[in-house]
Structures are given as structure tokens and as C-alpha cells.
């Protein structure tokens, strides 16, 4: 049975300073699947997921969430359904607890609810002991974990991850991979940008390869690695 379509984008075009960085991108994101986005530096991967998550406006094209066209009126509501883990994390000058609580405060959760959810999420990532530390004083890897906690705590219905491996040690990479598996098994679709083709192969249900703002391929890892070996030298 085909999995349910959660997100559809059609004919996305994006310019930065008269330079076309995305050209006619179409794609679908389905429930419980991991979509791996690969491609060389500057090929438009980050720009694409910023448009998919309503952080950036496309110059042309549409994004549909569960069949509904995203526009100015409903984009805040849409943004509150998604989670985004950045390539370079930015934590705020506050305790780990307050950083993780932020998304829930934006959504006007009660203090009690916030406390429960933050505590259980810190526990899930094994960083309960960092709770009272200032987030800015943490190591790169610890910060990345806090930023993952900050995203998961809001129970996102789609998760976008931009290159999670930067500044993580092996153990932490495994933790991220475990979480990606858990979330996708729970039905949450995940769009994962990665330069690591083993990761794309192991975690991905589908692989999109981009080059110069164009979608070059969109297929399963098996097909991809059978036929497209030559693309990998770009990554």
C-alpha cells in the first residue's frame, strides 16, 4: 500500500540576487519515510528545505501540507507542525531547559506541561545533567543534542534535518540515527540532508540527488547505488 502523502511541492523556483538557485523542483514527502537529500555544496539543499518548511518564500511554485496550500494566513500554523534541525545550531543565551522549552512557550503550553515534556525529552537524549547549564557554554556536540531536543519536544509532524553529523562524535551520530529511525517508524516523515552516503543508504527510503538547483534523480537507495555510482564523487 502506498504511504500517505504529507507534503507536496510543485514547480519550486527560487532566485537569490538574480541567480537561480532552485529550478522547477517537484517532490512528495510521505508518512513514515526518510527522504535523503544529497548533492554537492551550493546545490540548493538547504534552500529547498527552508522553502518546504515555510521559512523562506519561493519565487514560484506551491507547497501543500496534507492537501492544503500553504499561504501567508496558514503558514504560522504549518510551521508549528514541523521541526527543523539546523546545520549550524544556534542556541540562545539561556539555560538548556529554557532553550528546549522555547518552542512550547511559543505555542502557549502551560508551565506544568512544558516541564513534563522538556524533562522527558532531555531524558530521551541523555542530557538531563545539562539541564541548568547555559546552552552557550556547551561543547559543539552537546549543543547539537540540545537543538535536537528542542525540535523533538514539540512533537513535529515532519522533521527537516540539515546535515546532523557536523561536530558530532560517533556515539552521537548513532543517537541521531536511532532517533531518525524511531520517529519515522512512528509515522513521522523525515527530510534528511546528508553528505554521508552510508547514512543515506541505511536510513533513506528514497534519495534525491541535486545539482545546481535541479533534481537529478529521485529513487530508492538500491536503485541509486546501483545506477548512479558516478554521482557520488560529487558528494
Amino acid at each position: 500500500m502506498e504511504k500517505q502523502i504529507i507534503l507536496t511541492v510543485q514547480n519550486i523556483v527560487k532566485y537569490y540576487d538574480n541567480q537561480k538557485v532552485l529550478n522547477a523542483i517537484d517532490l512528495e514527502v510521505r508518512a513514515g519515510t526518510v527522504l535523503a537529500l544529497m548533492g554537492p555544496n551550493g546545490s540548493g539543499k538547504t534552500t529547498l528545505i527552508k522553502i518546504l518548511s515555510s521559512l523562506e518564500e519561493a519565487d514560484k511554485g506551491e507547497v501543500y501540507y496534507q492537501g492544503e496550500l500553504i499561504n501567508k494566513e496558514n503558514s504560522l500554523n504549518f510551521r508549528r507542525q514541523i521541526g527543523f534541525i539546523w546545520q549550524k545550531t544556534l542556541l540562545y543565551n539561556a539555560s538548556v531547559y529554557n532553550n528546549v522549552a522555547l518552542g512550547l512557550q511559543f505555542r502557549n503550553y502551560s508551565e506544568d506541561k512544558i516541564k513534563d515534556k522538556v524533562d522527558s525529552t532531555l531524558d530521551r537524549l541523555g542530557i538531563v545533567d545539562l539541564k541548568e547549564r547555559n546552552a552557550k557554554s556547551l561543547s559543539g556536540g552537546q549543543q547539537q543534542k540540545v537543538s535536537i531536543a528542542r525540535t523533538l519536544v514539540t512533537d513535529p509532524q515532519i522533521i527537516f534535518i540539515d546535515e546532523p553529523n557536523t561536530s558530532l562524535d560517533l556515539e552521537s551520530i548513532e543517537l541521531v540515527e536511532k532517533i531518525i529511525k524511531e520517529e519515522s517508524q512512528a509515522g513521522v516523515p523525515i527530510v534528511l540532508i546528508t553528505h554521508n552516503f552510508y547514512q543515506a543508504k541505511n536510513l533513506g527510503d528514497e534519495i534525491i540527488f541535486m545539482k545546481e538547483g535541479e533534481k537529478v534523480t529521485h529513487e530508492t537507495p538500491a536503485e541509486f547505488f546501483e545506477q548512479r555510482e558516478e554521482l557520488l564523487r560529487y558528494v
Partner: protein
Amino acid sequence: MDYILEGLSAALRLLFNLNPEIREIALLSIMVSTSSTLIASLLGIPLGFVVAHYDFQGKGIIITILNTLLSLPTVVVGLLVFSFISNQGPLGNLELLYTPLGIIMGQTILALPIVVTLSLNVIKESEDKIIDTALSLGASKKQAMILLFKEVRFGILGAVITAYGRVIGEVGLSMMVGGNIRRVTRTLTTAIAMETSKGEFGFGLALGIILMTIALAINLVLHYFQEVRT
């Protein structure tokens, strides 16, 4: 050496006895500089935000003007203000020349470009990432803005303190626009310049010690906030 030591002991005696004239001069200086810094901040922080945040025609020119003002000697700003508020100047009928209000006006012009450019830099440096991250966490535009201000508040405070340091220590403008009139417009810096040239070294030194203490306090506060920031 004796000369310096004698001056120092005279200075300490004056300070210890809370000499009323010294107290008056110090209070006027603090009042004038605090007012001008406050006005410059009320105007300058929003202006810095607008220039950092929005793209508009003439933005480049504004930044160039601000940078030029930043490096102007205080006497040149004094000259400019003087020409406006002297009897024949366009604002002559307001009778601001040789009044504390006149000095406040001039010092505001000195402080404004400092507040604007420094807060502009602080906001520009961190704005995109802070806003993007907040939006991705489900913030509304307004919630993202509030978070931005919370994050840059120490940097902006640093800009305000730097501006205060510039105006409390300047002498050229206060002299030209204020005229160093006893009990009216005599500030710490203009009094130091005059008393010392008059040979009242101890008196000048006492004022100098106050000024140095203020400068030290300013730098300690600045240092503290920069530490907290990072």
C-alpha cells in the same frame, strides 16, 4: 614630584570633605551626559534596528553619514551646534547657547551615531539566524522579534555605555556650546581644563579622580555585560 603630591593631598581633602562646588560640577556633568545618552538611545536604538532590518533607498548614504559623524572631532560638532544655536543661528531664539540644554543637544549629536552604528552591527550580525531559528521553532513574527531583542540586549547596552563614555569625557563641545560658566554649565572636563591652567592643580586633580572613577565604572559594567553575553 612635591608638586604632584601636594596636589594629590589637596585633591583628596577636597573629595573627602565633599566640597560643594566639586559636587555641583560632578552632578551637572552626570546629569547632562545621562540626558544626552538617554535621548540618543531612545532615537538611536530604533533607528539602528530599522537600518539593520529594512532595505530602502538611501540606506548607504545614511550609513556613510553615521560613520563620518562617528569620527568627527568634538570641536567640529561643537562648531556645528554653535552655528545653529548662537544668536544669529536658525535656532537662536531658543536661547540654548551657554545652557546645559545646549550641551545636552550637542552631546546627543555626538552619542547618536555611536548608539546607531553599534546597535546596528549587533542586530545585523545575529538577526538572520536568530529569527530563522525562532520561526523554525514555531514562533510568530512577533515572538521572533521579542526573542531577537532579548538576545541582543547586552550588545545594545554595550553600545549605550560606549556612547556615555564618549560624552562624559568630551571637552571641546562642552566648552564651545556651554562656555564653562560657573554654577551653570561648568562640567568635569571643562573645569579640569580651566582649573589646571589657572594653577589650581589640586582642584583639577580632584575632578580628574571623579572622572576616572566614572570611566572605570563604565568599563567595569561594559566588561561585565560582554562576559555575560558570550
